[in-house]
Structures are given as C-alpha cells and as structure tokens.
C-alpha cells in the first residue's frame, strides 16, 4: 500500500516551479497501478518523494504504512527502478547487485536468482559500461527485485526495451501483482498502460487528473468506438440507430459505431442474420481520451495539425 496525502514539491527560489501540486492518492496491493502523465507531469518527482530521495515541500507519503525512510529493511519493503540511471558504469552487474545486497545481508544466491530472473546471468561479469539501454533497464529491475519487496515502484520500465522485453515486463508486473504485491509503474504511454495496468492514476502539471480503473476510464471517456465491416453495412446501420448511437462511415461497407459496444452490435447482427467480416473495439480511442484529458496540462504543445484531430 502506497499513500500520498497533499504531496507537493516546488523547486527554485524566486520564481518557484511547482512540479507536484497537492497530490493525494492510494495505490493498493494486488493490482498493477499505472501512473500516467505527459512528460514533465511530475511522475518521477513523485516517485523520488515516495523513496525519500526528494523531500516534499508539503504533504506526506507512506509506503507500507510508514515513511520509506523509517523502515528497518527498506529493500524488502520497496523495490525501485528510477528513470535516471543509478548504476556505476565501471562496476559489473553482479558486483553492483552484490554491493546493494550487502547492506541488507542478502546472500549471493539471491543475487544470482535475480540475475537469472532478468536474463542477465550471461553478462553478469561484464561492466555495465558496455550495456545497452535495455540491459541497463533489466539490471535496474534486478536491483528492484533484490529484497523480494512487497511494493514495486518502477519509473518508465519499458524505456529502451525491445518488444520481447516489453512483454516480459508486462508479465512480470502482472505476476508480482497477482502475488499480492503493490505495483506502481509510470509511463507516458496510455497504450502500454491499457494492457498492463488495472488501475490508473493520471496526473498533468503535477495535479491529479484522474484516479480510476482502466475499465472505467475507457467507459467514461465516451469515445470508445467499434469498427464494423459488413457487406450489409447500410442495413446494420439502420438497426443500430438510436439516440445515444452515432455511426459514421468513411468507406462503403465499413462503419465506425459509437455509443454502444461490440457485444450489442454482434448480437444485433446475428439476430438479423447479417454477416460480419470485422468487429473491432478501437483501443486507439484510449490514447485519444488520455490526450483529451491531459491536453491542457502538457508542457510543450506542438503547433500545426493537432494529433487529436488526426487520430479521430
């Protein structure tokens, strides 16, 4: 369990910049919680405050019921992967982990275990200097798992990972949550969180924008559309028409249906013996909803044709 209450961080003297602004949230065990926001939204700062690396200007946060710094065996409470590299490049992967392990009396066998889990056994003796971004991330995750912690706090863990690595992280996070651990994982990619997380905490410019489940976020965003391809598209369109339903069609035989779900469309089609070639809920709309939500709080807005328009 992670709790933040009125968490605030301001930097700078004369013209202070507020990185995190009165943030209150809870992260529950047993689920993967996605921590989302555009770049510069305050995700990393919040995570550093949870780990006691940055002191909050106001408010407080606890992990497992206490301030992180108050734990007697912090590595067994929280495993953390920070966005900024926190590894000495001159040390080998094994010795990096061993140096951290010594602080808590964690044995070398456990170090070998996490090297194995993260697929680094073969390169354990090599200096981190020669590691790719993905290998560096794996080593960071190995360090996070070292103390077999009840809580994982991972800042942009999929950064620099290849597709296989992304899938591995996704499964790892889900498995950790399924074992009853608290998992908080940040990302600026809604699409990644949609398939990894159960719960979402979305911030923009340091403020809480949404604290909800992925399911509810999709439903409430109201932009979920379903793509339907059918030889009898026109007929189906008439059958589906209703006050809450909007149907558009860019190409003949293809419908973009909003206001109802794939199940209803499928049943309607079946009841009228209309063949369907394709029936696809559009997940891209999730990214759309995320952008709509955070649009006002992005740090650097591009001019020109808006992404929102292009995606819709």
């Amino acid at each position, binding site marked *: 369990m992670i709790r933040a209450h009125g968490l605030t961080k301001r930097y700078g003297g004369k013209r202070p910049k507020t990185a995190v602004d009165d943030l209150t949230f809870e992260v529950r065990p047993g689920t993967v919680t996605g921590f989302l926001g555009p770049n510069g939204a305050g995700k990393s700062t919040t995570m550093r405050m949870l780990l006691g*690396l*940055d002191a909050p200007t106001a408010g407080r946060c606890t992990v497992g019921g206490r301030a992180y710094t108050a734990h007697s065996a912090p590595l*067994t409470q929280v495993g953390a992967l920070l966005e900024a590299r*926190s590894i*000495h490049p001159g040390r080998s992967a094994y010795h990096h982990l061993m140096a*951290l392990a010594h602080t808590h009396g964690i044995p070398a066998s456990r170090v070998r275990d996490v090297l194995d889990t993260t697929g680094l056994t073969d390169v354990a003796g090599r200096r981190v200097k020669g590691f790719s971004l993905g290998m560096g991330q794996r080593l960071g995750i190995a360090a996070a798992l070292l103390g077999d912690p*009840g809580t994982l706090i991972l800042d942009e863990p999929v950064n620099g990972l290849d597709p296989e690595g992304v899938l591995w992280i996704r499964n790892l996070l889900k498995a950790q949550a399924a074992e009853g651990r608290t998992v908080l994982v940040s990302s600026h990619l809604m699409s990644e969180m949609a398939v990894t997380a159960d719960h979402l905490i979305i911030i923009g410019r340091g403020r809480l924008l949404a604290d909800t489940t992925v399911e509810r976020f999709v439903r409430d965003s109201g932009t979920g559309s379903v793509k339907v391809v059918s030889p009898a598209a026109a007929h189906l369109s008439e059958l589906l028409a209703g006050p809450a339903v909007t149907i558009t069609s860019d190409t003949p035989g293809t419908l973009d249906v909003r206001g109802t779900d794939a199940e209803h469309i499928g049943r309607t089609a079946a009841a009228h013996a209309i063949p369907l070639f394709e029936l696809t809920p559009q997940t891209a709309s999730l990214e759309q909803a995320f952008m709509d939500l955070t649009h006002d709080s992005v740090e650097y807005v591009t001019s020109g044709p808006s992404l929102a328009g292009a995606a819709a």
Partner: protein
Amino acid sequence: MTTTDTTAAAPSQPYRLTPAGILRSEWHKLWTLRTTWITLLTATALVLAVGITMGSTYDGDDSEVDTVVFVLFGTQLSQICLAVLGILVTAGEYATGMIRASLTAVPRRLPVLWSKAAVFTAVAFTLSLVTNVVTFLVAQIWLGGTDKELALTDPGVLGALTGSAAAITLLSLIALGLGALLRSVPGGIGAFVGAVLVLPEVLTTLPLDAVDTAVKYFPAQASSSLGSITRVENTIAPGAGLLSLALWAAAILTTAALLLRRRDV
C-alpha cells in the same frame, strides 16, 4: 485499514539493514572499481620509485633534510592520488547516479557517508603505512654508511613513518568530504587543490603575522608537521598538527553530513 497497510505479500525475511552490512557494502564498492586499484597502485609505485631514486642517487652531500622526509618525498605525489580516490568515493557516486541506488538501500543516508569515510580511512592508512615502511627499508639499502643511515627501531623513525601515513590519510579524508559536499569530481579536485594546497601559500604572502600563525594550522601545513623525526622548521608540534588535521576532517565531514541529510538527490 491498518491491516491492509502491512505488505503481507512479502514473506517474513531475515534480511535487515545493519551498520556492518553498510560497511561491507562500501568495502565491496571500493574494491570492485578499476579506478581504486589504479589510484592505489600508482600511489604506492610513486612513493617507492621516488624513495629508491632518492636513496640510490644520494652521494652523502650533507643535506639537512630529515631522513624520513628525504625517503618519502614521493608522498607529495601519492597524496594527490589518494585525494582523488577520496573524491571519487563520494562525488563519483553523484557523477554516475549510483548515489540514488545507495540512498534507496540506506534511506537514512548518514551511515553511507560514515561507512565510506571509515572504509577509505582504513584502506588509505594501512596502504600508506606499509608503503612508507617498505620504502624506508628499501631506500636504506643505499643509504647504509651515509649520514642518513637509520634503522626502523631508531628513536622517532616509526613515529615519523606512521605520522606521514596519518597525515596523508587525513588530508585525503578531507578530499572525500569535499567530494561529498560538492557532489562533483572536478569540483572536488578543484576545491582540494585550490583551497587546501594553493590558498594557504597565497595567504602566507600577506604581511600579517596573525595570518602566518593561522595558516600553520591549515590542513596541508598541519600535515607537514607530521612525518619527520625532527621538527620541521616553521611548523606546529606534531600533536597539534594531528589534532588540527583531525578537526578539519571532522568539520568538513560534519558539514557534508548536514547537507546530505537535507539535500534532494
């Protein structure tokens, strides 16, 4: 709520953050970097090489220099190596970001600084003492029969060799503290060379007696009171020198500790 608050998922573990564990960690960190080996070997080689050169080329010309000071001229060079290592031990972690991993493992922070200082002090002092004794003995191979012939057991010799090692160690510990304070390797080296080595020399050019007296208690000047059999001209007593050095090191480490507790990483 309190029941769900405990992280019940993790099985009860024997792992615990302990002072001994943090010391071991810092010991491990020190020896698993190549720069440590390079700087320590270079420091030792320089003292030995200069000592052998001084001994083998000595032609008995009535130099007034104390024998221990004479054979340990190389410590002027090894001092720089060990100071740089001290700075790397602390500031190096900021340069690489390792400090974030270190302080996540030890969120109370201060034990990391104390352990770094303790491990570094033990290693630097032991190595300097052994190097000094060996260099003295090797140089004596050539110095036998000259006015600089001395045995290890002669009065004051062991004290001077130990004093030299203590001075080198404490000066390097000040460098370690500066590294922790400034969190930058170039900054630490600049501050050490500028404030500890050069600034006092500049100050002594001022025509003020009070300044001259004060400068004698500065780290580099206090350190030259140690490491000789007979008292070197223009220095304070060895006891006062050792005390000054220790106080300087303590003051800088304390300042570094106060900032370490307060600053964001």
